[in-house]
């Protein structure tokens, strides 16, 4: 069985590109929105765990970069 992928609206993605300069923050914001989009109404995920993990990943990326 196949599964389709939901898309965040282009308007929101464009606004993220415009308003956020830091590439790390941009990517993090997109990931969190994609997560919310896919799990909405379908199941109740542990969002705190996902959000926190994402923050840890992007903090590390930021530290590696600097």
């Amino acid at each position, binding site marked *: 069985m196949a599964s389709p992928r939901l898309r965040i609206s282009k308007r929101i993605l464009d606004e993220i590109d415009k308003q*956020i300069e830091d590439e790390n923050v941009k990517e993090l914001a997109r990931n969190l929105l994609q997560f919310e989009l896919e799990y909405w109404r379908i199941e109740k995920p542990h969002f705190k765990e996902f959000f926190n993990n994402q923050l840890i990943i992007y903090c590390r990326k930021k530290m590696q970069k600097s």
Partner: protein
Amino acid sequence: MKIQSVELENYRQYRGKVAVELTCDPTRNISIIQGVNGAGKTNMLNAVNWCLYSKEEHLSKYDAKKQPIINDAELRELPEGEKIYAQVTVKMIDEKDNNRFYQFDRRIGAKKDGNGKVIFDSEPEFHVYMQIKQDIQEIRETEMLINRILPHGVKSFFFFDGEQLDEFFKEERSTKVREAIFDVSQLYLLDRTIEHFEKTISSIRGEVRGENPQVDQIQEKIREVEKGLESNREGKKEKEEKLREIRGKITEIENRLKDCSESVVRALQNQRGSLNTRLEEIERRIEKTKEQVTDNIIETGPLIYCFPAITEAIVQIDQKAEKGDIPPKIAQTFVKELLEKGECICGTNTEANIEARRRLEELLKKARISEIYEEILGLKYDLNPIKERVADFLEEQNTLRKNIMSLEQEKDGVKRELQEISTKLQGINVEEITNLEIARNQLKREEEALIREIGVLEQRIETARLALDRFQKELNDELKKSKKFAEVTERLNLATLTLNALVTIRQKLIDDIRNTIQEKTREYFLRLIWKKETYDTVIIDNNYSISVINKLGSECLGTLSAGERQILALSFLAALREVSGFDAPIIIDTPLGRISKEHKESIAELLPEFLRDAQVTMFMTDEEYTPRVRQLLSRKVDKEYELCYDESKSQTTVKPYGK
């Protein structure tokens, strides 16, 4: 995404298999399905809705009661023990995703038991297939796919019944407009992410609990504020829900009074309708004038602070000018030239005569001061307009305040008239009317109280938010002092940065989208409406309340005819569709249903232009699809069908139009 075909089998009046292919041509993007009333147009729209969403939202009361979902004749002839199905198949193609093909099948079965009783399946079966390269595979997350194509909350702006459009703006509308805008632009997605982000931040802060007394103390304050914030938000949500409910009940009572058999009640209710419209307009004008007062203060405020200094400066300049200190008597450039030349105006050689040179140098110093005086004199001409602007400001503010007072008086007058109508309605000797009016007044009081309570809660939320910001900064400063908290601080900083960006993006999108939808709705409405000299503009305000303003500047939504309301709803839906970014097909049942004969043609001419980028399917009656309308649409129409209903067989068949 386009619908290639709709196939029906034994669905309601469609007996056996019936298939309709729709246009996928981007230039000739319209398909017409024509049929007289009762031929099965709305049920074909229902079939698409049922197949994709398992709902037949446009089902008439007659069909719901008299006609089962499986064709009646087929059910009658079904032998005992055998099973029959009603099935709808919708085939779609996503041209923006390599022409990927999708097939949606929904079917429901029924069989006859030994006593001839028909037993339906408790749930329909639903299967979705997707083409991946050369293979066709069944899709597991069907709801997810439907959400990607056209979410349930948005579909009513793409698949709709034209005749019911005028209801769209009849009842409490700001909630509908807000929900529509939020649905089509995925703003709920941002809301949810922001809410979850706030909770995550709070949980990260919890990780450093018990490590440092100072940090703990600030955390305690944050928790208290967050608790209050949460409870105020919940309270606000509940009250808003209650307000919606109350407004719905008020509309229901008002509609009942409007349709009452007593002519005096109808007249009073209509009068009340007009007075309410006037009241709304006055309130709008008061609000606008108050905004002007504030804007003026913001703009001129700094000048008012400087006003005493400006006045003093002008007096001093005048005094200097009177004394002859300004304008300067000695030109700096002239003295400079004499010094460079080495010869005074009297002919003395200043290179040789040191005393003469010293005198010239002293003169140059004075000349420099004089230059400054010249600038001061120039300044007077800059300061005078500022002084005048301040004087004008005071006059403008006085006029605006007077306007507000007179509008407030007018508002009180309208309120008194409304009160008189209410007293008259309560005094009418018909028990039902008196009771309705008493109930309405009670609801109105509850409505006012709720609006006040919501305002108080909003204020508390704002105060809590500011306090939270302050404590968060304090916490960050405290955490920075210790290396032990470096990792948590980093995470908190990144989280706060991202959260703030999302909050900004949300607000920007809300403003942009509301403005764009307002602009588009206005543009479409003013182009489609026939009374071009009557209407001036359409406004969607910050509270998502929609108003139509006439050329005299009055709000007139309440007085639009059914046809005009349909045009407004069509314009709003076309604007929503354009802003939504959903590349979904549009299906309209009886698009010109409520439009008078003489205006059908002009709308038929403009409609394809507004829906130019979408695949459009229109179900039209013979009264709508007249030869003239057909001619006007001909350049855009690719497929035309006719639904033929055979009453003797209770069955609808489909054939190419006119054959």
